[in-house]
């Protein structure tokens, strides 16, 4: 083996030109795959840093309308009491806290409320101090906070004495008890968190069954499988549905793998897709190198014949040739890691999580092991066919005829042609995949969303749950003042406040009943998205009013409960009549009041729909002043203005400060930028696929060039004969081009057929981005054939310059 390695190195240094081309090709192929594996590793495999993360599960509420709903506190505590599958079970809820220190501008902190066992589940200790425990999760004892490592570093300058310090959150004093390490953050699932606080629910809060806002996470007992936990959860859900039919009939529970849920379905599938397409790039690179090796083997036939004549077995010869290839691919892999390190830095900088750009994609030990395995496999893939064919050399003939001996030229040539056809088919798939994304994104961006993002500035606020905003009147007063201040801002023509905007999609969905219609079975009621909005919302956001009226100032808590619904709902529920005046109510027993339809507006499409479909096409807009004020704490602001967001930001912040100095306004962006942050991931995927397609196209072009050039070299005598018989240069040119074109067309046809499968797969991952238009595929096929034509033209041109005298003499 050692001698094989030494000889392999000698071969590589002897043919520096070949080695350089091969290493570059492999570096591209392996580098792209290493970078994509880093992405997959960070976004899918290595999401949770907790020990024994395979025992972590999340528990979701399901109904016929949804598979991933949150839970009410009462249901959570009942489930926790009855479940035996868990070592630890906890609930959490993402929220915001306003940090407002006297004399300093208020700052919004993304945070999480957790129950007492939350941190025990992850088995990760504090960086300093301690983490939240069961004793903190009690009403009256919950004014403590754990800081995230990043927040501790940025806002507390990594002060080791931070434990015990008091901070003012939502106008109340909290004691910092510790700092949690970065490994507890899970930014993919939760975005960036600055702190954790205990829920500390009182008895009334724990007994609430109608309001679902908690997420559940748990660590299974050793030996308990997710299947067993699921069986238990199903049984508990059935009991809850039986005991509390008003709230839980038709609901069940779903136990899901924590890591998979964290990774997110779309991002996980997209990461796998990128990995698979990177595999295509590597396959094209392998086919290219295998082709090069097959050509090289022809020149080394005599060497192989001598080795065989001297007693080498076929296996020994194959091993020697494979060693050469593996050395080559390890060298290529090493450069590939360098490329991947650069690539992952770039990719990481392009990832946006929670409006914050940048995510570290480490090239860690797992990635390096992947690269080593990929390199060795690549070496074997590239080398095995040429090695096997070369080892079957007819010793007698090869020794007699030297390097021009019997080398199985026919089968070798057929293999080379098959490799090129495969390369071209894969290149077309890459081009088609990139085209699908580009066209799909173009269509998505160009489609009328039903609202007008241009000239719209958006921002977020969250009102704290404290004495300042404890009553409906306090909240409504704030909202009135806020809208009045916003309307008065210079450069702002209209403004509105709502629970959400058509960027991230509706605030929440809930089942409802229509007056005068039969009551469906529990859990089978129609579902609608509910959006609390202020007066002026539709005109500010640019949603067209079709019938009736919009939300007015006069819609107050004590006036008739009204709603504006979208066109899809109106047409579906009242197809042959006006929806105006019709009434509905929510199924939630706490919200039994009938609500009257006073207006119908156009349907809107949220930007986030690019990743996932909404639960329902029905949308109900309610006046903010007619919903319980505890549901009007998370606010989205919309301001129509021709001024840039940065200019409006200052005056908006100042206006809010005048109402409540403790209230920060954050994520002040133009609607286009906010939309861009959501689609940026897809733009990144689109960019990645375009790079893959370009590399694939280049490699395939080089591949077909190599094969046709080799064909010309091998057929120079034949070309000489043809020219001696009177073939014109154009006859020779077309003959060679025809051969290249035949391969190109076969590869293209296979690629086009396979692209339909790819489109179906892409369509299942991102239904909104449907880009499979035949014209684009035909255009891509034409581009591929044109590139192949250029690649074939060079050797074909050379063929026309064959000197028949020399060619015939050479024979």
């Amino acid at each position, binding site marked *: 083996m050692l001698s094989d390695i030494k000889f392999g190195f000698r071969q590589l240094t002897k043919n520096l030109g070949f080695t350089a081309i091969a290493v570059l090709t492999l570096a591209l192929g392996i580098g792209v795959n290493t970078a994509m594996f880093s992405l997959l590793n960070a976004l899918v495999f290595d999401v949770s840093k907790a020990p024994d993360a395979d025992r972590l599960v999340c528990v979701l509420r399901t109904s016929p309308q949804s598979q991933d709903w949150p839970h009410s506190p009462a249901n959570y505590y009942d489930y926790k009491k009855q479940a035996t599958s868990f070592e630890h079970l906890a609930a959490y809820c993402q929220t915001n806290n306003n940090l407002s220190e006297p004399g300093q501008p208020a700052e919004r902190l993304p945070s999480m409320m957790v129950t007492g066992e939350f941190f025990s589940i992850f088995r990760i200790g504090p960086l300093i101090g301690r983490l939240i425990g069961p004793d903190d999760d009690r009403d009256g004892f919950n004014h403590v906070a754990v800081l995230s490592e990043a927040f501790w570093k940025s806002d507390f300058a990594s002060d080791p004495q931070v434990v015990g310090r008091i901070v003012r959150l939502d106008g109340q004093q909290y004691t910092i008890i510790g700092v949690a390490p970065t490994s507890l953050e899970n930014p993919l699932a939760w975005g960036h968190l600055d702190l954790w606080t205990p829920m500390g629910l009182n008895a009334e809060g724990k007994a609430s069954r109608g309001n679902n806002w908690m997420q559940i996470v748990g660590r299974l007992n050793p030996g308990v499988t997710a299947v067993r936990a699921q069986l238990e959860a199903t049984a508990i859900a059935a009991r809850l549905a039986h005991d509390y039919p008003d709230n839980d009939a038709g609901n069940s529970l779903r136990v899901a793998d924590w890591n998979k849920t964290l990774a997110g379905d779309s991002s996980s599938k997209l990461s796998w897709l990128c990995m698979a397409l990177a595999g295509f790039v590597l396959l094209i690179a392998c086919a290219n190198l295998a082709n090069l090796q097959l050509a090289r083997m022809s020149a080394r036939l005599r060497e192989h014949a001598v080795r065989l004549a001297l007693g080498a077995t076929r296996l020994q010869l194959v091993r020697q040739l494979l060693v050469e290839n593996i050395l080559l691919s390890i060298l290529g892999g090493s450069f590939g890691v360098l490329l991947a390190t650069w690539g992952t830095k770039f990719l990481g900088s392009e990832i946006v999580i929670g409006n914050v750009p940048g995510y570290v994609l480490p090239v860690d030990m797992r990635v390096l092991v992947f690269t080593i395995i990929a390199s060795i496999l690549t070496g074997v893939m590239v080398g095995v066919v040429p090695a096997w064919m070369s080892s079957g050399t007819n010793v007698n003939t090869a020794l007699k005829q030297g390097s021009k001996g019997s080398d199985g030229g026919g089968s070798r040539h057929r293999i080379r042609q098959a490799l090129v056809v495969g390369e071209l088919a894969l290149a077309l798939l890459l081009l088609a995949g990139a085209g699908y994304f580009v066209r799909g994104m173009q269509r998505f961006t160009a489609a009328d969303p039903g609202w007008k993002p241009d000239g719209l500035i958006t921002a977020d606020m969250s009102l704290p749950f404290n004495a300042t905003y404890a009553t409906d009147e306090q909240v409504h007063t704030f909202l009135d003042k806020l809208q009045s201040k916003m309307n008065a801002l210079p450069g702002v023509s209209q403004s509105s406040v709502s629970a959400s905007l058509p960027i991230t999609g509706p605030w929440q969905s809930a089942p409802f009943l229509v007056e005068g219609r039969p009551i469906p079975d529990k859990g089978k009621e129609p579902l609608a998205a509910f959006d609390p909005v202020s007066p002026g919302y539709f005109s500010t956001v640019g949603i067209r009013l079709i019938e009736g009226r919009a939300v007015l100032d006069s819609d107050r808590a004590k006036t008739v409960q009204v709603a504006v619904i979208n066109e899809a709902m109106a047409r579906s529920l009242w197809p042959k009549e006006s929806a105006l005046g019709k009434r509905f109510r929510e199924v939630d027993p706490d919200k039994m009041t009938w609500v009257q339809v006073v207006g119908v507006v156009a349907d809107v499409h949220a930007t986030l729909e690019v990743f996932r479909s909404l639960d329902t096409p029905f949308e109900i807009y309610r006046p903010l002043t007619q919903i319980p004020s505890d549901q009007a704490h998370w606010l989205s602001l919309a301001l129509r203005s021709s001024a840039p967001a940065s200019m409006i930001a200052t005056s908006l912040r100042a206006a809010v400060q005048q109402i409540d100095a403790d209230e920060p306004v954050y994520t002040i962006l133009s609607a286009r930028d906010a939309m861009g942050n959501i689609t940026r991931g897809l733009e990144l995927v689109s960019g990645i696929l375009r790079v893959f397609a370009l590399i694939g196209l280049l490699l395939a072009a080089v591949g077909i060039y190599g094969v046709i050039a080799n064909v010309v070299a091998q057929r120079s*005598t*034949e070309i000489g*004969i*043809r*020219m*001696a*018989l*009177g*073939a*014109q*240069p154009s*006859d020779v040119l077309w003959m060679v081009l025809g051969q290249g074109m035949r391969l190109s067309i076969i590869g293209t046809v296979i690629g086009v057929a396979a692209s339909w499968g790819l489109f179906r797969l892409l369509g299942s991952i991102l239904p909104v981005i449907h880009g499979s238009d035949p014209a684009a595929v035909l255009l891509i096929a034409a581009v591929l054939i044109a590139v192949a034509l250029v690649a074939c033209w060079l050797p074909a041109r050379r063929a026309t310059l064959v000197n*028949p*005298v020399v060619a*015939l*003499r050479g*024979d």
Partner: protein
Amino acid sequence: MSQPLLKLDNVTKVFLTDEVETHALAGIHLEITKGEYVAIAGPSGCGKSTLLSILGLLDTPTGGTYLLNERLVQGLTPAERARIRNREIGFIFQSFNLIGDLSVYENVELPLTYRGMPASDRKARVEEALEKVGMGHRAKHVPSQLSGGQQQRVAVARALAGHPAVLLADEPTGNLDSKNGDAVMELLQSLHRTGSTILMVTHDTRFARHADRTVHLFDGRVVEERVESKE
């Protein structure tokens, strides 16, 4: 006396390699009339093949003039030279130079396809040529299924199919055993008897005697011309 079909006047050919001048042909004068059978003989390296390449328009002379059918062929474009090769010259090579991937029929048909001849005409010509060389029954075979002698007969048929003005044969028996060599020489003689003009390069004086006239080359010059006696 009729006009010569081929006429070389003081033709020279000089190869330049690494600043060394090699005079392959040094002032060749040669005339070949229609229907003549001429052998060009001489030792290896005397310039026989170079002369044949020039006569077949595969190569160009460095100096002198070459008239083919009274037409000066120097200065023609590659496309015009290819056209003349295709229509007026039939090549028979030492190593047959059949295309392995083509059938016997397709090999013979090949020069006609370059002429743009309709398929029905080609068929008639190919069948006629193959019958003439006695290979009509092997039309569907590929060269590797034939013996060396049979391959050379196919090569002769390919040369004949275009009804060329002259057949240029470069050591046509060089790769054949004596029995097959004799058969090919018989074939050339029979073609000559039916009016074909043949110019054959050979180093074998035994075969040179089949020709009407033998031109001996040495160091790129014609050193002797001898009319063969036919007894």
